[in-house]
């Protein structure tokens, strides 16, 4: 929780979020053109996207199904009949002169999304979710040469590749009470829509875009006048912008002013919001039902088919990990940050021979610790992680049975990770497991290959008393100064000596035995 995000004493910040989620369909909301990102300008714009005379929109069933999946997953109401409406305004990147959206009768109303909060999970109410199409892009600089030749240096270009891309606009109630909470909501919503597979979640490509409605009030007072902040293209900017905006409004009111309802733009460079347009200059969009599209009727069969195709939802997985695996609530939240991570954890946990709390805890620590660190370092997606869940379980099995120490396990893990990342296969057998998390596949190894690697790397834990004694003796002899410190009463010196023995064993010594031997020898010789 950001400290700066705490409102001044006596004030409450009230935030509602509107999110444009780009639905992961291959074709557009109302045309057959591709939604692929990054094509040359206007390559993915067909006659319908260009709004040529005489063309008509046809709704994309895949987009509707994704909206249904969302509505069902959040426990909202699926409206059996919703209406596409036209939002009329002129702009060069809006080819028809109107955007097809849903206005009075959206496909989904209500529902809730839980977010992580100080005391576990908090439920945020959603107002509605509706289908609409995206606009294109106006390009005022950096035009392709050909385009610049046509319109001149001062001219603008229009790229309609994005025009007609399906969006689900998800509107929350003003239930959020701080910038940090708003960011937590946005992160959780992002994880949620990718979890249920309706959005690729790519923030850089604009697949998930948030606007924030921010107001402030003295505690207990009715809602204040809100400002809408646009252009929030990261969770961090969302939090910073709301922080700034809340402070601005509080200062304004404390100085005797009042907040004007307006749309403001966030400038990340200066970390401030600036007015874009006031309510007075707000356009009259002249919404009315699109006569090209009959009301969108959803029958029970369709709803049931979508319902049965939904994966286990993150709330359910979290609850199960806490109650059945004995995982802490915090760890359960971390493990369910994405469906891929949760599935990775569950597969590794399932591959352990003993299904007990200690084992689950060990897997959870490794998935959130070494595994996540390696993944972040090398920036590899979970479904293509060089160490698959089964080999990780093999490593952990050898930790549990005392074959290797925890530090040796890290060495082993990183060896396997790096070798697979380099594409090397020596040391252990790799293969692919189809069907592991989404469309990807992952490398695996058998437990015998992990055991072979333990031997070849010489990582087997040394528990032999004779070998350990020799190591301990050597360290006592070499570290007389530290021994003297210990004898002078500095307890910390003992840990340093243990560390030296471990180092001498290259991590293979059993730390418990080392400690006991060292203690006995120092006391004896003292």
């Amino acid at each position, binding site marked *: 929780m950001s400290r700066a995000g705490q409102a001044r004493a006596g004030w409450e910040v009230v935030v509602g979020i509107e999110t444009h989620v780009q639905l992961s369909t291959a074709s557009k909301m109302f045309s057959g053109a591709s939604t692929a990102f990054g094509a040359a300008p206007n390559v993915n714009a067909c*006659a319908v996207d*260009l*709004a*040529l*005379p*005489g*063309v*008509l*929109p*046809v*709704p994309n069933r895949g987009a509707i199904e994704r909206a249904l999946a969302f509505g069902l997953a959040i426990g909202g109401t699926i409206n059996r009949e919703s209406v596409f409406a*036209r939002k*009329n305004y*002129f702009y*060069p990147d809006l*080819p*028809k*002169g*109107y955007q097809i959206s849903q206005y009075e009768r959206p496909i989904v109303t209500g529902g809730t999304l839980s977010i992580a909060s100080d005391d576990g999970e908090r439920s945020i109410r959603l107002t509605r979710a509706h289908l609409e199409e995206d606009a294109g892009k106006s390009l005022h600089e950096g035009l392709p040469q050909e385009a610049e030749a046509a319109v001149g240096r001062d001219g603008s270009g*229009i790229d309609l590749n994005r025009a007609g891309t399906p969006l689900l606009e998800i509107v929350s109630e003003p239930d959020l009470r701080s910038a940090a909470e708003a960011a937590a909501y946005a992160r959780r919503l992002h994880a949620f829509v990718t979890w249920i597979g309706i959005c690729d979640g790519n923030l850089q490509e604009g697949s998930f875009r948030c606007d924030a409605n921010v107001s402030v009030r003295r505690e207990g007072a009715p809602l204040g006048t809100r400002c809408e902040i646009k252009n929030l293209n990261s969770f961090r900017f969302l939090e910073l912008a709301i922080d700034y905006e809340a402070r601005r409004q509080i200062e304004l009111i404390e100085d005797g002013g009042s907040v004007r309802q307006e749309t403001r733009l966030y400038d990340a460079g200066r970390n401030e919001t600036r007015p874009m347009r006031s309510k007075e200059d707000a356009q*009259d969009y*002249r*919404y*009315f039902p*699109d*006569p*090209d*599209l*009959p009301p969108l009727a959803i029958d029970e069969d369709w709803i049931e088919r979508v319902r049965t195709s939904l994966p286990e939802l993150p709330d359910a997985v979290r609850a199960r990990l806490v109650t059945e695996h004995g995982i802490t609530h915090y760890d359960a939240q971390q493990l369910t940050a994405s469906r891929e991570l949760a599935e990775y954890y569950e597969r590794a946990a399932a591959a352990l021979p003993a299904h007990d709390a200690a084992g689950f805890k060990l897997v959870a620590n490794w998935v959130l610790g070494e595994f996540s660190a390696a993944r972040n370092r090398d920036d590899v997606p979970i479904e293509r992680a060089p160490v698959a869940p089964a080999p990780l379980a093999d490593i952990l099995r050898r930790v549990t049975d005392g074959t290797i120490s925890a530090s040796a396990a890290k060495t082993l893990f990183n060896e396997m990770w790096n070798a697979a990342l380099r594409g090397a296969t020596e040391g252990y057998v790799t293969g692919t497991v189809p069907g592991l998390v989404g469309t990807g596949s992952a490398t695996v190894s058998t437990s015998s290959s992990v055991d072979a690697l333990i031997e070849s790397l010489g990582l087997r834990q040394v528990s032999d008393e004779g070998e350990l004694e020799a190591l301990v003796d050597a360290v006592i002899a070499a570290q007389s100064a530290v021994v003297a410190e210990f004898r002078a009463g500095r307890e910390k010196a003992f840990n340093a000596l243990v560390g030296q023995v471990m180092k001498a064993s290259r991590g293979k010594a059993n730390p418990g035995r080392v400690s006991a031997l060292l203690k006995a020898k120092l006391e004896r010789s003292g």
Partner: protein
Amino acid sequence: MTEPFTVAGLGAALHARRISSVEATQESLARIEAAQPALNAFVTIDHEGALAAARAADVTLARGAAPPLAGVPIAHKDVLMTAGLPTTCASRMLADYVAPYDAHVVARLRDAGTTLVGKTNMDEFAMGSSNENSHFGPVGNPWNAARIPGGSSGGSAAAVAARLVPAATGTDTGGSVRQPAAMCGVTGIKPTYGLCSRYGLVAFASSFDTPGVLAQNAEDCALVLDAMAGHDARDATSVDRAPADCTRLLRRGAGARPLAGLRIGLPREYFDAGVTPDVAKAVEAALAELRALGGETVAIELPTVGHAIPVYYVLAPAEASSNLSRFDGVRYGHRAAAYADLDDLYCRTRAEGFGPEVKRRILIGTYVLSRGYYDAYYLKAQQVRRLIAQDFAHALARCDVIAGPTTPAAAFALGTRVADPLAMYLGDIFTVAANLTGLPAISIPCGFDADGLPIGMQLQGRHFDEATLLDAAHRFQQATDWHRRVPSGYER
């Protein structure tokens, strides 16, 4: 002897190889060129394309097993996209626009073997009832070139009346097929909304726009409609149902009373309204004929139909104001030569590109959708639209078709109503309800007024029951010859 210039007659002659498609198409092109100075029925005439298509059709016909409409010349209203040909919507906005694709109905008629001779003139963006709102100038009525041909499919109606083509497509948003059909003395059908795809029809009012057919008679309308109709996955309002078979009742044997059992509803509201005596007399005579053919007339009520005009003129402009937003000078179409900034680009482009009637409707539509007016206008009109649909549903439970005049009066003189849009709008009083309800409706010639101008009778039917409408019209036409009358100077 010359072969009949109807779809059915010409089709039979083509299949029997008594005439080639090249000959038929050449005749059509020659007649179009000859009539163009007086009628201005065409915006684009495609000699080369038409003859190439005709030669191809002749090859197919020679091989046998050619599609039913193979080699039959046809014209499309210039609001339907035709790949490689200009599609202007009779607007300066699209004066140079060449369609990159075929409308669904255009493609279907191409697949059925028709040869496209050109694109017909119309009211700009199909907005109008007189064909006076065209960037390419008004269309003359073949019966009297100083009279309007009706609109917005005025070019198609005039082309069929003057026997320039055996059939032409139209589009009907508030009567734009039926009203010009009535005024030019031809047969025009607006099928059920959803029967024909709107893909490639430049939208005026999406929930009303319906592709339709203008031809000399009901049989031809049925043949062309069967070829045009069909589900199109690219139009979300296109209905997925068994293929239309509009000609099926026409093939029945005809006794002395072929319409026995047909209940013809006569709404009091249609005969109380301000209809000219000539129109009233012609329609009464036509009803007598239908009774003589075995039909039974029953009195029905349509209590809310009096609100159809205001409801239509709120909702259609509302949709139009949004549909026409895409004409902004950015991607295609007219763009102002000079502008100060983006807003100026939009303002100048649209001020220059659209004619006065289109602007009027965009303004009305924008107004009724605006914050603070939406509930009072748009929403209220939608509610009344539902009530009107209920009225028709109740009425059509008591009868099979609803009959009445297509228009309150025959064609008025060019230029006389330009300054009075309200009077112009009121002329749509009998036609707009079919667009509000989506019901099929047909206009058939049923007489002439004192000035020798044609009068039309309208029959409206149940959803997707085009076959009954066409059968009633066909039996009427077998017993009458109004539809065979040719305007003076256009005889073959």
